Every structure is written in structure tokens, then in C-alpha cells.
């Protein structure tokens, strides 16, 4: 029995939460140091950027899982025929939103990594510090792009966590799935506040 597709879909669901979702949460929380001032943010980002074996942490916790999730996700998004106009139920609208935010996030994250981590890697910047983000976000268009990007990411994570719970058979009944909806809504709101507060601290 060829169950490659089944395993790939399960892996896609798992990697979205562990490690990508955990990394996003951690990333937004560390960014939140910016609300305590430039020194606090630089200290935190310096600590993160100089963890032991950081390149391996980045490769195995971020780059590989994220790239698998992104590229397989694009394939998944393009194999759906969206019909929220005719079937405008909440879950169907979230289903469409999950795919649109996913496609947008591929673009946003590629740009974000290029502007920050990649510039450090090729030696154009010494470190991804407060100044770097302050420069980027001084452009109001970039600030808007980042606010939309962070919101898309927190939505994609929260809604993805809801479907992770279904995909792995954790929430089965209608009631458990409804309660998971409330919980993931809370996750979305909390992470979005944390993320946007951090962004506004650079302005």
C-alpha cells in the first residue's frame, strides 16, 4: 500500500507545530524585549544569535522543517478548489484563509529572512540588532507589510493548530472541536498582540 501522501500530509501537519510553530512563538516572545528598550532587545538577540551550535539549530529547527512545510503547503494550497462564496461556513472560510495566508507567508518570510539573517550571513550587517529593524520599519510601507505578515503568521499557526488537533485525531467530537476553536482564537489574539507590540516598539 502506497501511503506516501498520507505520511507527507501528517509530517506537514506535525512540522507546522513542532518545530515551526514553537519557533514562531519563541521568536515573537524574544522580539517582545524590544518593548523594554534597545539594550534589552540587543542583549536577547545577541544571546539567541550566539547559542552553541546555532547553525545546526537553525538548519534542523528552522530551515529544513520550514522549507518542507512551505513547499508542500504551496502544493496543498493549489490542489484545492475554493468555494467560500457558495458554502460560506466559518470553517470553510478559515480553510481558504489558511491557504491564502500560507502563500503570503512564503513571500513574507522569504523577504524577512533575506533582509535580516541573510544580510548577516553575507557580511552586510554585523548582527540582526535593534538598529537593523528600526531602519526597516522606519518605512511605513514596510511596517504595514510586517504587521500583515505577523498577523498572517499568528493566524496560520493558531488555525493550523486547530487542524493539527483534528488531523492527529485529538479533537473528535463537535464540542471538542468547538472548544479547540475558542482556544486557538485565544492563541491567535495573544500572539498577535505580542507580535505587533514588538513591531511598534521599533517605530
Amino acid at each position, binding site marked *: *500500500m*502506497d501511503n506516501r*501522501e498520507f505520511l507527507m500530509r501528517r509530517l506537514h501537519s506535525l512540522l507546522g507545530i513542532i518545530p515551526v510553530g514553537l519557533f514562531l512563538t519563541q521568536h515573537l516572545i524574544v522580539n517582545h524585549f524590544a518593548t523594554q528598550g534597545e539594550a534589552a532587545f540587543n542583549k536577547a538577540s545577541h544571546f539567541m544569535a550566539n547559542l552553541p551550535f546555532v547553525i545546526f539549530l537553525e538548519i534542523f529547527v528552522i530551515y529544513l522543517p520550514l522549507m518542507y512545510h512551505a513547499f508542500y503547503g504551496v502544493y496543498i494550497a493549489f490542489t484545492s478548489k475554493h468555494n467560500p462564496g457558495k458554502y460560506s461556513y466559518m*470553517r470553510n472560510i478559515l480553510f481558504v484563509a489558511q491557504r491564502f495566508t500560507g502563500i503570503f507567508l512564503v513571500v513574507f518570510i522569504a523577504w524577512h529572512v533575506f533582509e535580516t539573517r541573510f544580510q548577516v550571513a553575507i557580511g552586510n550587517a554585523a548582527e540582526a540588532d535593534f538598529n537593523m529593524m528600526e531602519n526597516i520599519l522606519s518605512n511605513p510601507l514596510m511596517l504595514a507589510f510586517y504587521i500583515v505578515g505577523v498577523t498572517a503568521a499568528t493566524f496560520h499557526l493558531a488555525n493550523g493548530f486547530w487542524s493539527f488537533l483534528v488531523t492527529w485525531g485529538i479533537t473528535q467530537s463537535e464540542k471538542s472541536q468547538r472548544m479547540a476553536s475558542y482556544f486557538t482564537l485565544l492563541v491567535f489574539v495573544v500572539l498577535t498582540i505580542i507580535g505587533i507590540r514588538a513591531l511598534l516598539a521599533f517605530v
Partner: protein
Amino acid sequence: MGEAAKTVIFEIERRNSTDEEPYFEKFELPYRLNMNVISALMEIRRNPVTMDGKKTTPVTWDMNCLEEVCGACSMVINGKARQSCTALVDQLEQPIRLQPMKTFPVVRDLIVDRSRMFDSLKKVKAWVPIDGTHDLGDGPRMPERKRQWAYELSKCMTCGVCLEACPNVNDKSDFIGPAPLSQVRLMNAHPTGSMTRDERLNAIMGEGGLGSCGNSQNCVESCPKGIPLTTSIAALNRDTTVQMFRNFFGSDRMVD
């Protein structure tokens, strides 16, 4: 005479055969109390003249039981897939737009070929095997409360509405859709059927199986029989999670 006679307007997507271009035709017919879409289609068949007075071929459609248990008369009515026998004209906005369920190959006009659903039922082994060389006798008894629950799943009439509503059932994907998946849960719940539950679980872990569900949950919203399709899918997700590990680590407990 008093008020003008009340009429009903239908807009029907037609085509002469599978590969031909579709076209719309409008029909205006006299209103009758309690008329449904099928009685309107019968009226059009009796007098196939369009709204602008052109004589046309009678519109073809599928029907059988006329009481929403066979599933044959499913079509897209005002954008949503449902049975035309229980679609009452009084409850529909006019003009009433009828279209075939294009997720399936359209045979002619409103008739579609739902064979893929029956093929999927074969693929997932949606039956209870009892054939053998000798009489196996009665199987284990099913608890009454479980029987009542399983009866709800057995109401599936393979009408195809859930496949039409599902965004992941389309020509870019080979997803078998919600209906056959729920039948796996029904057959696995049966005391004799559960003796081969791993075969069905492995079947839905194959290409186009359970993994292709994207949780849009249109199926459960659309199912005319109110079958808890998304609960079935989530329950099968749990069963296949366990089955996946059993397969990988070579468990000797293939059947509980």
C-alpha cells in the same frame, strides 16, 4: 379576473453530452401549491418550451425514490448541492438555477455519473466479509446503543453532495471524499466488520485517502442526512495514527 397567474422561473445549465459546451436555458411555468424542483422538471418535460417561446429538447435528470433516501436526484440548486426532490419551490429564491454537480462527469443536462463513489467504496472495502467455505454462524452481538449510533452513519445514500461541497475533491486531487471515509468508520464499528479493520484503515491511508482532507467541514454542513462526517474523519484520524505506528513498528495487534 383578479391577479395575474403566478409563475416560477427556472434557469437550467444544459449540455447534450459530457464533452459538449454547457449553455443555459430559461423556463417559465405556472406555479402550483407545494411544487418541488422535480415536479417543475416534469412540467418542463411535458412542455419543453423556453421562456422566449423556443421549442427545445426535454431537460434530463436522474431520480428514483422521491423521498430523499436514494440520492439519485442530487443537483446544484441556487449554488448549493442538494436533492431536487426535497427542494421546495416556495423556499427557493427565483430564478431557480439548476446545475449538475460538476465534481462528477456530467452525462447530459443534470445527470452525472457517480461511479467514482462506488469505486471508492470498493477501494476502502466498505462491506462486512462473511463469505467462506462453511457457515460461520451468528457474529458477535452489537450493543443496542452502539447500533443506534451506527444507524446514523448507515443513512449515507452515496448522493455525492459532500463531494460536490468539498474543496479538496476536484480534478487536481484524487481525494475520495468524506462519504466513503465515513463508511469505513461504520464498517469498522460492526462487530464482524471490525475483524478486518486494519485492512480498511490501510486502504484509507493510501493515495487520495484520509490524508487529503483539509478540514473545511463543508461536508458535515451539507450532508442531507445529517451524518457526523467530520467526527467520523477525526475518529479515523485517531485510528490511523495508531495504525501508522503499528505498521511502522510491526505490532502483533493488527486487530483489537
